[in-house]
């Protein structure tokens, strides 16, 4: 009997130990699970940005969980089709991807991506509610379900050389006209004391790169004035493109002027080139995502530390009146959100790099992939990564906006951090924020049709009117090919996103 009691006690103690261990692990982070022997193949675009933090943190994650992370990179322009053909042909060479959430419109309906709704809710370490609502809703959610883990927050804004503008008594640009006049003011002057002529503005204008977003950032101010749900790409009644009207013409005109106020080979510059020029002190103004802000504090490459200011995208005092299809002066009806008579339409270009998981991967690999994405997005890691320029990650969590410690530790002054985060916050909180296109084959509309027409326009191959006609015809042709009603539904559905 005594022996039986002893055995029973041991059994109870054993079960208790197992239960306590199990309940303990359920409260732990998903990255503390053991994934030994698992390899996660993650594909993203050729870095150094975006790929760099994934590669840098992969060994730490392996130490923590035993899972090996293999980061595969492909050029940005190839990523969309590479993923789609890999999924569609069931090659399944990638278990996870860090990609453009705009493409969910193409990847989710055929069932290529894993539904992450349950996982994000159960994962306490991810701190899902710390991610700003816009990124949770736009970058992560498609038709009510979560498919991605946001790793980056994307808004385009304008950077200016605070020291130069202050010295010459100039205010940061509030409108695109201001931007042009400031750029002209500094064009050809030596801005960094190296004896060379520098440039008023540096923009990325290269074809088949990430340039076309800059034009949308300009056009948004003329095309959307009545709030996010109005949309800046299509008429929400009939899916007619908003690319052939006086607003689009004004934006093209600004874009063309800017192509001539900058470095001589601006048409061959990608964002890497324009960022490099700005942080080496060769430009007075630039338009970019959050990257310049963090690159400017990097002592290894920046010559403009603490000399950089950031503002919300410039706007316009005249906007497109869709009832007359003419440009009209802003008034309370036409521009209900105008500030000092200027309509600002901050553009959430791209939406922010986000991680997703291939539905066809094995259950264990999917668990490991989610643990990796969760690890990358967790406040501890991401809070640090968003302050490092070369990561390409920009702030997207509430804690990253409220906690200035990481920013000051990274080398930003409190004033500069407030300035930088303020520009992003004012974009994020704007009721007239412009959402990027998220409809089936959005890559064709933007990356192919728009990109090519803009490049041809800048090169002088086609006139302003021909550019507008070409974009409109190509967009209409694609819309009709895919189905106008379906595209309209997808577009309207994407605009109903809450911020």
């Amino acid at each position, binding site marked *: 009997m005594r022996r039986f009691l002893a055995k029973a006690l041991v059994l109870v103690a054993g079960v208790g130990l197992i239960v306590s261990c199990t309940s303990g692990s359920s409260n732990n982070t998903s990255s503390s699970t053991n994934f030994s022997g698992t390899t996660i193949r993650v594909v993203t675009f050729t870095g150094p940005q975006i790929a760099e933090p994934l590669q840098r943190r992969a060994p730490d994650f392996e130490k923590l969980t035993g899972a090996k992370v293999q980061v595969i990179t492909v050029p940005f*322009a*190839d990523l*969309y*089709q590479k993923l*789609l*053909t890999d999924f*569609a*042909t*069931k090659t399944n060479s990638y278990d996870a991807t860090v990609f453009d959430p705009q493409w969910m419109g*193409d990847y989710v*309906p*055929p*069932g290529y991506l894993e539904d992450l709704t349950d996982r994000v809710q159960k994962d306490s370490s991810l701190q899902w509610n710390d991610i700003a609502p816009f990124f949770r809703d736009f970058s992560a959610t498609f038709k009510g379900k979560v498919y991605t883990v946001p790793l980056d927050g994307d808004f385009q804004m304008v950077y200016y050389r605070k020291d130069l503008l202050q010295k010459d008594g100039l205010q940061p640009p509030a409108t695109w006209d201001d931007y042009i006049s400031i750029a002209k003011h500094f064009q050809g002057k030596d801005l960094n004391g190296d004896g*060379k*002529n520098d440039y008023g503005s540096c923009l990325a204008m*290269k*074809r*088949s*790169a990430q340039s076309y977003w800059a034009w949308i950032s300009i056009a948004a101010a003329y095309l959307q004035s009545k709030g996010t749900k109005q949309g800046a790409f299509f008429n929400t009644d009939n899916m007619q493109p908003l690319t052939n009207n006086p607003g689009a013409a004004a934006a093209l005109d600004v874009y063309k002027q800017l192509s001539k106020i900058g*470095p*001589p*080979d*601006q*048409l*061959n510059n990608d964002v890497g080139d324009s960022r490099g020029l700005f942080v080496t002190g060769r430009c007075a103004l630039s338009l970019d995502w959050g990257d310049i802000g963090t690159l400017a504090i990097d002592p290894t490459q920046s010559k403009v530390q603490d000399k950089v200011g950031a503002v919300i995208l410039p706007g316009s005092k005249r906007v497109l009146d869709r009832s007359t299809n003419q440009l009209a002066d802003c008034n309370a009806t036409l521009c209900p959100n105008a500030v000092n008579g200027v309509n600002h339409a901050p553009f959430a270009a791209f939406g922010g790099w986000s991680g997703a998981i291939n539905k066809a991967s094995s259950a264990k690999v999917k668990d490991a992939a989610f643990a990796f994405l969760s690890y990358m997005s967790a406040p501890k890691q991401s809070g640090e990564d968003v302050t490092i320029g070369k990561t390409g990650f920009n702030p997207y969590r509430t804690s990253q906006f409220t906690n200035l410690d990481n920013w000051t530790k990274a080398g930003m002054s409190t004033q500069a951090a407030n300035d930088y985060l303020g520009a992003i916050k004012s974009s994020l909180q704007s009721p007239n924020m412009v959402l990027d296109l998220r409809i089936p*084959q959005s*890559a*064709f509309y933007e*990356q*192919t049709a728009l990109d*090519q027409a803009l*490049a*041809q*326009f*800048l*090169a*002088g*191959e*086609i006139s302003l009117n021909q550019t507008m006609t070409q974009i409109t*015809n*190509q967009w209409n*042709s694609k819309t009709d*090919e895919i189905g106008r009603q379906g595209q309209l539904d997808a577009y309207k559905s994407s605009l109903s996103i809450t911020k």
Partner: protein
Amino acid sequence: MSIHASPRALRTAASWWRPVGARLDRGASLVFILPAVVVILAFSIFPLLASLYVSLSRLGFSEGGVELKFVGFGNYAKLLFGIDQPHFLGVTRPLTPVGIAVLLVIYGLFAVLLYRYARGPNRTLGGLAGRVVTTAIAGALVWLIVNTILTSGRPGTLVVTIVYVAVDVSVQYLLGLGLALLVVQHLPGRRFFRVVFLLPMMITPVGVAYLFRMLTDTSKGPLYPLWAHFGLTDVSWVTNPWGARLAVMIGDVWQWTPFIFIVLLAAIETLPHELTEAAVVDGANRWQVFWRITFPQILPATTTVVLIRIIEGFKIVDLPNVLTNGGPGTATESLTLHAYTIWRALDIGGSAAVAYMLLIVVTFVGISYVNLFRRRVTAMA
């Protein structure tokens, strides 16, 4: 142990084996050829036919896979007459006097060649028909080139590719021949230069493209001091359409001249010395030796290497893709890059249509070249 068989038994065995042997003999050809046929069908004919079908279809994505919707010649119509016509064929404008003069000269030349063949002793009906068709297609291409380049119009990817091939192959041939003739001279360091001249060919084309991207940048890069010396740092030649095309052509010439050089060098080095020595003894000067002795003897190698370079030249993609991304605008975009940019947007059918147009053009140029030029040269040699 020994085996003894009677003559009768051997005869019986032989008579049994004869039909089997004959059957095997008959089947042997099939057995030997079949693997090659299967390989060719699998790796050449099947992809060719499959891509032809794709070029007549539109790709769509459905639950768990892809679907191809047959659209007939819709993709080709889009290229030749539809929304992609300016991109593929270019934009034509009214002819200038220079354009008219060029067209008259070229068409006149075509007419003279046709007339000479028609009146010549070797004419055949098939040959004449072939030449008329070739002349008509070549005439149309010349018209397109003149109307898009020598006017205020704009060349499409077809014309740009033809310009690349014509300029690149001509310059590469002249430079390759010059270098080969130089290296066969008994000059000091010839062995060293023989290797040095080959180096560009060994570099990956993407590397060459990045190299030229740095070299053409006037505001920074290794040639900056040179540009600065001439006050050209505020001028960018790769943002000008013809400047960018020139940069692509210089890169291609730099990379592929060694290929022509090595083939011609091999041809020149194997030439017998007797003819040259006899010519020198007879008082021929260097030019006469080259033009009357060396050049005719290397013509077969010349025509082969030029044919290879023409075919390869039509497929140029790395340089314009990396150097300029096909820009400014679409100025440097070749046919292959055109197909690639459409493919990237997942218009697989449209991309296959461009690829087929390229195949048709390369086949036409290749066959015309072989029929009209190479055979004659080989026969002469």
